[in-house]
């Protein structure tokens, strides 16, 4: 019996190792590099700002959510693909991380192979990026949702998602308080589902709570964490739990896991608010709006900077003022007055009249 367990344990380890291996092996799947002598040296003298941009290689490492997360990993991919199509001489490649232990090998893989820019999607890759960036000072890195400072070859894109969350909260508060959507109950409860108790998730949630409370001070916000960004069935279960407690607007901030929550909201004929990207297509008639962040823009701009030789390390902040975060168009059926209020509050946030805190109320 013991032997069997050892065997199973060993194979699980082997699986992890092999999947990592596979992941790295699959790196060359997209857009093969054009020109084998594309390596730098000559590249630097190639002038800047020409329409025929310098040839650069971009590597994207997703976190465990993967490209199918309908969220920020996918958005980063969209940004990179846009760059590939719109800028000349950009070739791209993707590796999806299967587990957190893949981060360092995946990042190193691109750096080793002479990629000019390596994009790390996600706060959870912070330590991996710090480590690998120091080992490969000639490679540029971009990390999404994090603020690494003091390493010249690392740029960080940080999103003030609390502002987007705030607007989403305002929408939820308004329709909840005035029962402005068909089928809302009278319990005045909304449910938030976080993937993990970490800053990029919590900023959204904090903003949502404040925005909701502003419009609907007597309403209640449920908050639960799934501790998964990928388990859809689990996300669905959490949503069902919140719905059973009376929540009829669900706001999941949990990557792929949240997709299950939206699915559950749709089945239970209640409403949901999407996250990261406009997720209305996942459940038309269920998703009222989405709190969005422009990961695609951040990625595109950074690629452009690398190509033009203007890449700079340090933190860039994306917020409502520079359209780096925002809110998706409201669902049909939501009164125009809600949109008007949202627009007003957006201006108040931009002007600094409303300050949105990043602390989650528990």
């Amino acid at each position, binding site marked *: *019996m013991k032997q*069997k*367990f050892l*065997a*199973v344990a060993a*194979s*699980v380890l*082997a*699986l992890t190792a*092999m*999947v990592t291996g*596979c992941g790295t092996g699959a790196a060359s799947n997209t857009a093969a590099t054009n020109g084998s002598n594309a390596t730098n040296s000559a590249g630097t003298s190639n002038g800047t700002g020409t329409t025929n941009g310098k040839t650069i290689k971009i590597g994207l490492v997703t976190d465990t959510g*993967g*490209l*199918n997360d*309908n969220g920020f990993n*996918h958005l980063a*991919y969209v940004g990179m693909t846009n760059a590939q199509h719109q800028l000349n001489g950009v070739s791209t490649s993707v590796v999806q991380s*299967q587990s957190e232990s893949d981060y360092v090998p995946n990042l190193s893989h691109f750096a080793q192979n002479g990629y000019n820019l390596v994009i790390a999607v996600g706060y959870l890759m912070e330590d991996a990026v710090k480590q690998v960036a120091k080992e490969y000072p000639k490679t540029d890195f971009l990390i999404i949702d994090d603020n690494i400072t003091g390493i010249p070859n690392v740029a960080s894109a940080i999103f003030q998602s609390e502002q987007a969350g705030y607007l989403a909260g305002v929408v939820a508060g308004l329709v909840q308080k005035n029962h402005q959507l068909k089928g809302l109950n009278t319990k005045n409860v909304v449910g938030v589902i976080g993937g993990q*108790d970490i800053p990029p998730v919590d900023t959204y949630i904090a903003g949502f709570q404040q925005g909701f409370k502003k419009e609907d001070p007597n309403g209640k916000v*449920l908050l*639960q*964490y*799934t*501790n*998964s960004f*990928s*388990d*859809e*069935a*689990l996300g*669905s*279960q*959490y949503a*069902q*739990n919140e719905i*059973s*407690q009376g929540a009829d607007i669900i706001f999941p901030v949990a990557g*792929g896991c949240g*997709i*299950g929550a939206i*699915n559950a909201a749709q*089945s239970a004929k209640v409403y949901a608010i999407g996250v990261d990207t406009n997720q209305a*297509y*996942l*459940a*038309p008639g269920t998703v009222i709006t989405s709190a969005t962040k422009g990961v695609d823009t951040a990625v595109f701009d950074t690629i452009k900077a690398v190509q033009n030789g203007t890449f700079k390390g340090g933190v860039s902040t994306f917020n409502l003022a520079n359209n780096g975060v925002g809110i998706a168009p409201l669902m049909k059926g939501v009164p125009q007055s809600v949109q008007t209020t949202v627009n007003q509050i957006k201006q108040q946030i931009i002007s600094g009249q409303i300050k949105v805190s990043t602390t989650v109320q*528990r």
Partner: protein
Amino acid sequence: MIFSDPEIWAATLSMAVPLALPAIGGTFSERTGVVNIAMEGIMLIGAFFAVTFSYWTGSAWLGLLAALICGGLTAAALAWGAIRVSADQTVLGMGINIFAAGLTTFLLNTLFGFNGTPINTPKLPDISIPGLDKIPYIGVIFQNQSILVYIMVVLVIISHWFLFHTRLGLRMRSVGEHPLAADTLGINVWRIRYFGVILSGLFSALGGAYLSIGVLNGFTPNMTNGRGYIALAAMIFGKWTPLGSFGAALIFGFSTALGIVLQGQGISSNLLQMIPYALTILALAGLVGRAVAPAADGIPYDPRRS
């Protein structure tokens, strides 16, 4: 008191299905003497083809059928390797898991693209049995559960009866305990083993289909999230019996449900997250007493050489 809330039991039941089905499947396979750790992979195959055919044909039931066929075929490949070729069964099973994870992700992105499977994919119906839903408390537990929940309950009972109260069940167990003795009595060891392994494939695929077209109506890569391995633990925890596997699956399902409900009481989610895994370790550390595997489990049998 949270335990008096029927919601927790409803969640327990719903989270137990994708563990109980593959665990019972594994029981059938291992009872005939073939170690099956490929449940995770076969679940993924089942989940993926359930969605694909459900979308293509417009009928969730045909999707379910396709899941069973594909799961059965995958299990048949495992069976052929384990029985005919006498390959190492643990390695084979792991190979299938890796293959399935890669194949389903590749097919998903090739057929449907990164935005996932179409949202109008039909799913299996959620039903409330008339009469049952009138009973207070119990009614809430069974309210709007997927039809596969009921099918699972029926399958648990049938499986137990089949394995312990029918002639074929007895033969399966004998082949797993002492194949040579069974062979001398005229039982075709290979055929019984093929039967057991393929049966396990059908159960695992059903578990996968529950996730993709029972709870949800879409497929995402690795959507089983290690449930096939937890099912392996449930099978051992349940001492290689269908009823035991079901009981173990309920305990694992309950720990997940408990995690969900307790969070509403303000307990840290990080602590609650470990409950299912802590339970798994306790289970495997022998909390339930010695779990004895079938004697010939994992040992290939070659009638020509004996």
